[in-house]
């Protein structure tokens, strides 16, 4: 399983101001979407290299979540190469039109996706959820003048982020228990899949709702107040 969690370590990136990291992530993501071609390639490589150097995250760990995306990335590349309109076709067959422009366009998208996911991964692995919450809260501060409860919004966002790994581990645990009870996860047919999905999804939903319920009670019991500073 991919670990989306904060990964404890000590590095420049870990110690950096979370708001600064969050803003840089957004700015670099926008930048990456604006450039293309060789410039994109250079900026991407430099950004990834700097992130690795500053965060002490190994190349292997950084790219492991991307391995699962290979089918998607390959599909993007193929679809672009085959169906990129308004370009010269190297080979044409009805709607299909193989083109160099399409291929380059696909390559741009793939490169952007990889870089943005890589940078986000570095951000998540080097920033605790509390720091993320603080950063979001700061960003939303201007909305206060519009009488919007920014503290609620940032709390909701940070809880959602924290819930992701919990839901994953719930899933794993329930799956193991149902395997012992006889669920057959090796049956990949549609009927077999439906038969095994229900025993996992229903308990997982119940557990998520129960956790949410408990959490909201705990938050209130500790005197949470959205108007507070």
């Amino acid at each position, binding site marked *: 399983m991919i670990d989306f969690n904060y990964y404890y370590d000590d590095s420049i990136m870990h110690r950096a101001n979370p708001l600064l990291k969050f803003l840089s992530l957004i700015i670099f993501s926008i930048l990456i979407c604006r450039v293309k071609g060789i410039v994109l390639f250079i900026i991407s490589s430099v950004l990834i290299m700097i992130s690795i150097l500053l965060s002490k995250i190994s190349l292997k760990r950084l790219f492991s979540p991307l391995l699962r995306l290979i089918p998607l990335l390959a599909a993007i590349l193929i679809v672009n190469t085959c169906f990129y309109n308004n370009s010269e076709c190297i080979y044409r067959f009805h709607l299909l039109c193989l083109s160099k422009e399409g291929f380059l366009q696909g390559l741009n998208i793939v490169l952007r996706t990889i870089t943005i996911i890589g940078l986000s991964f570095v951000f998540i692995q080097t920033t605790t959820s509390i720091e993320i919450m603080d950063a979001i809260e700061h960003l939303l501060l201007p909305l206060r003048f519009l009488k919007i409860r920014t503290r609620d919004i940032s709390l909701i966002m940070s809880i959602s982020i924290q819930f992701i790994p919990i839901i994953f581990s719930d899933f794993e645990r329930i799956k193991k*228990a149902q395997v012992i*009870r006889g669920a057959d996860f090796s049956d990949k047919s549609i009927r077999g899949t439906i038969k095994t999905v229900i025993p996992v999804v229903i308990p997982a939903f119940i*557990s998520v709702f129960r956790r949410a319920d408990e959490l909201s009670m705990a938050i209130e019991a500790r005197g949470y107040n959205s108007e507070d500073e």
Partner: protein
Amino acid sequence: MLLRLKEISINYLPNQNILEKIDLNVEKGEFVGIVGKSGCGKTTLLESIGGLKKPQSGYIYYNNEDIYQHLFNQTGFRKKLQIVFQFPENQFFEQDVFSEVSYGLRMLDLPSDMIESRVKQSLESVGFNFELIRQKSPFVLSGGQKRRLALACTLAIQPELLLLDEPFSGLDAEGSKIVTDTLINEHQKGTTIILVSHDPNILCEICDRIIVISNRKIAFDGNPVQVYSKKDALQELGIIQPDTQILTQLLDMEQLNNLKYDYFIQNLIHFIEEKA
């Protein structure tokens, strides 16, 4: 030999073994209790034995067959070994109690009349009235009732080897008593049981062998008296002794050769009479 662990090492992260080179043999008909501090790897060990977490090294043999080997018969294994995980009531998903208990049996493709009789038998063995409970939703039961239902789901499979992870946590005295009685009953029918629990009093009452896990290894392995009489060593490992043993040592009584409560009381009366 029913179960044999040979030099198994398990980790979640490379080079950080949770258990290291564990050797363990369990004979048919044994009732084994496992204790150890929180986080020492008890649940992980049960998962490994159940075929859910492959050890990084070493072998696990069930009836002399390597359970992680490619050709091992998984379906057959599911009929023989069952695990009751911690808070097993969180795995319910059916609409009524009958379907919940019969789920495992249906997965094993048993004939329906056999399913019905097995469900009835297992629900009754945990103290339910079959006709009253069969159509209820599992979700409306009380905490203790849910735990008993979860146990019934497992017993319906009629396993040869039953593993339980903290089955008493969150139960009141009465609930614990029903679960304990059910386990004693199953053991008498010939089921081999491995039980993880933090409660030394219950373990002494029902187990005939105690295993202490500490520092990635098995620290002690023996009958309850052999293990629990080692006061200083246990204290060092942070393992609590049962009340009967603590009192025996406190009163300077002669070491009991059985730590069950009834036996202790008898000896205590004897001891007081002698002193008087």
